[in-house]
């Protein structure tokens, strides 16, 4: 372990800092003054509070399960439905089902060929119900084509940030990118989708619920787009730790959470026997050099943990790529379909997911 610098550099730094170090030696900054350390420590100790052990436990309990604590002000988190039932679902959302086996997918991104393939594949595998977690548009061609497929397929859909933005006439998709290049491509894709969606389709999007609850066997699962807190929160595997997910499940009073939004699928079975599943997306590949896309099959098997299967789904990606080129969509998007590697939206990836990507 080397906690020291090489002597030469250290000497140079010492010379450079001598004046300022003299000024700061033994002193703390307090407001705009330099004060003796003791003054700072005394002032700091006088601020803040030290609750009793019992009160601390109560604070933590309130935080973990706010709707069970009568003395807590109503939560203003935007994605929570107003008015909660005291028993059952924490948010008053009706529970659908019960089911034994369901297919859940997200991120259609205008991929009507992928959606058609999914409807067939999921039925063939015995799914009793189909759920879509939103983001119908963006990226791919001809947005209007997915609407009849969803309706004919009897798909239960919730709103993603795309539907929210399109229905409310927002200027952007609200995907949550920070990188200018990602935003540039996001703009192209959003503008294209907005221009090619009918008013009726957008109105329908606006009426979609932001969350649903389903029963699979004995378990009550919460379905959201990004996270229970925000429609555009990213839940990536390497950045969604177990204790965090446990608290989310407890706050939402559910036995599991199903989400999408990131484009990358994963499943975490929690020590409490609950499950959090990012179901992935069927609109574009999972940044793994493979051209297929992913959805999730959830099955109740008596006496076993929730059975979660991430299903690879093949579709005619060559035809979709040809259609995208006819529609003059960016070649960067077409490349992703044909190679399985993302060319945009890379900035949002946590370190581990980024390390696994080509670009």
């Amino acid at each position, binding site marked *: *372990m*080397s*906690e020291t*610098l090489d002597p030469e*550099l250290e000497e*140079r*730094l010492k010379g*450079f*800092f001598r004046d*300022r*170090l003299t000024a*700061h*030696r*033994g002193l703390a*900054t*307090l*407001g*705009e003054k330099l*004060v003796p350390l003791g003054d*700072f420590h*005394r*002032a*700091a*100790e*006088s*601020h*803040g*509070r*030290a*609750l*009793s052990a019992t*009160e*601390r436990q109560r*604070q*933590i309990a*309130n*935080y*973990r399960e706010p709707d069970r604590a009568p003395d807590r002000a109503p939560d*203003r988190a935007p994605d929570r439905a107003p008015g909660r039932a005291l028993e059952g679902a924490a948010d008053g959302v009706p529970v659908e089902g019960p089911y034994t086996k369901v297919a859940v997918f997200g991120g259609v991104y205008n991929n009507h060929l992928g959606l058609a393939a999914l409807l067939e594949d999921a039925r063939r595998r015995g799914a009793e119900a189909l759920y879509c977690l939103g983001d119908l548009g963006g990226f791919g061609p001809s947005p209007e084509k997915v609407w009849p497929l969803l309706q004919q397929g009897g798909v239960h859909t919730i709103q993603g940030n795309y539907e929210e933005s399109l229905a409310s006439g927002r200027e952007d998709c609200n995907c949550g990118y920070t990188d*200018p290049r990602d935003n540039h491509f996001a703009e192209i894709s959003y503008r294209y989708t907005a221009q090619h969606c009918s008013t009726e389709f957008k109105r329908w999007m606006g009426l979609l619920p932001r969350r649903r609850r389903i029963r699979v066997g004995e378990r009550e699962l919460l379905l959201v787009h990004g996270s229970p*807190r925000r429609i555009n929160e990213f839940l990536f595997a*390497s*950045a*969604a*730790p*177990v*204790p*965090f*997910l*446990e*608290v*989310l499940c407890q706050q939402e009073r559910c036995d599991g959470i199903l989400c999408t939004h990131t484009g990358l699928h994963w499943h975490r079975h929690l020590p409490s026997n609950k499950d959090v599943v990012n179901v992935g997306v069927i609109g574009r590949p999972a940044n793994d050099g493979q051209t297929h896309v992913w959805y999730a099959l959830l099955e109740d098997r008596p006496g076993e943990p929730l059975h979660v299967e991430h299903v690879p789904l093949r579709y005619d990606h060559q035809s979709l790529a040809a259609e995208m080129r006819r529609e003059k969509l960016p070649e960067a998007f077409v490349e992703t379909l044909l190679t399985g590697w993302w060319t945009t939206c*890379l*900035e949002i990836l*946590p*370190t*581990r*997911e*980024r*390390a696994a990507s080509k670009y």
Partner: protein
Amino acid sequence: MAVAESGSPSIPSIQSMSSIAPRVELRSLDTLWFQVAGTLCNLACTHCFVSCSPTNHTHEHMTLEQVEGYLREAAELGVKEYYFTGGEAFLNPQMEAILEATLRVGPASVLTNGLLLDPQRCQRLKALADASDYSLDIRISLDGYDAESNDAIRGPGTFERVLENIRHLHAVGINPVLTVTEVCEDAGSAAGKERFFALLRGLGLDKPRLKVLPVFHIGAEAERGGAYESWQRLREGEVAADDWEHLQCSSCRMVTDQGVWVCPILVNEPGGRMGEQLADTLDTFPLDHPACWTCHVEGVSCKT
């Protein structure tokens, strides 16, 4: 229960002004910071808003045991991510053990000046990252595109030394995030970012990553670039009550060896201290420091 105030009345404090400041709610405790190396640093950068230096003992190093205590409490509160800063984080002799403990419960990011990243340490960091389910991020500071501009802020010889250590990280497969403040001219512009991307690509990093931070006019920076003006304060009603989500203090806390502070910026402000344990600090906080004005106006988050 709350400890009575006993500070000297001559010392200005946040809470003495708090009657006119808006208060921000903690929406969720997602990000937990550790001032793991206190205010001790092997540099004394001229723009450091916490005036860190080899002799600033305002906050001392944290021990592994202290960090583990807060990690246990953080798990109960469902913290989503952990950040470590100083001072220079790797001056803390227990830093790697602290990272190992943290990576068992969540993703970790270390903010470092990059001077102590020799090849052996880089290999150990890579091993820690590989052993975890979660991401380990290393964020390295530079403040100029070349030695001349960077070293004027960070100290002579630091530019070359940091580039060499970025190569060490890259050699073991760690892709650091370069952190630059707006002390560096044009760092926030597209052209400025591209210059840093080019610098990183030149070192062999084909997926360059960059974080640009604004300047807080406190600490050493107040001496270098000037302090805040008196009008640079938030007043009640200036911010819509439901518009707090962009403020990091609505979703973070900062732990030092002396307790829990509201955010990573105000650790040298006694009034920024909110309690001993995390459970003490789930309440609202008055946005009555000029630095709060920067966070609001610039939309700052210290997170990557």
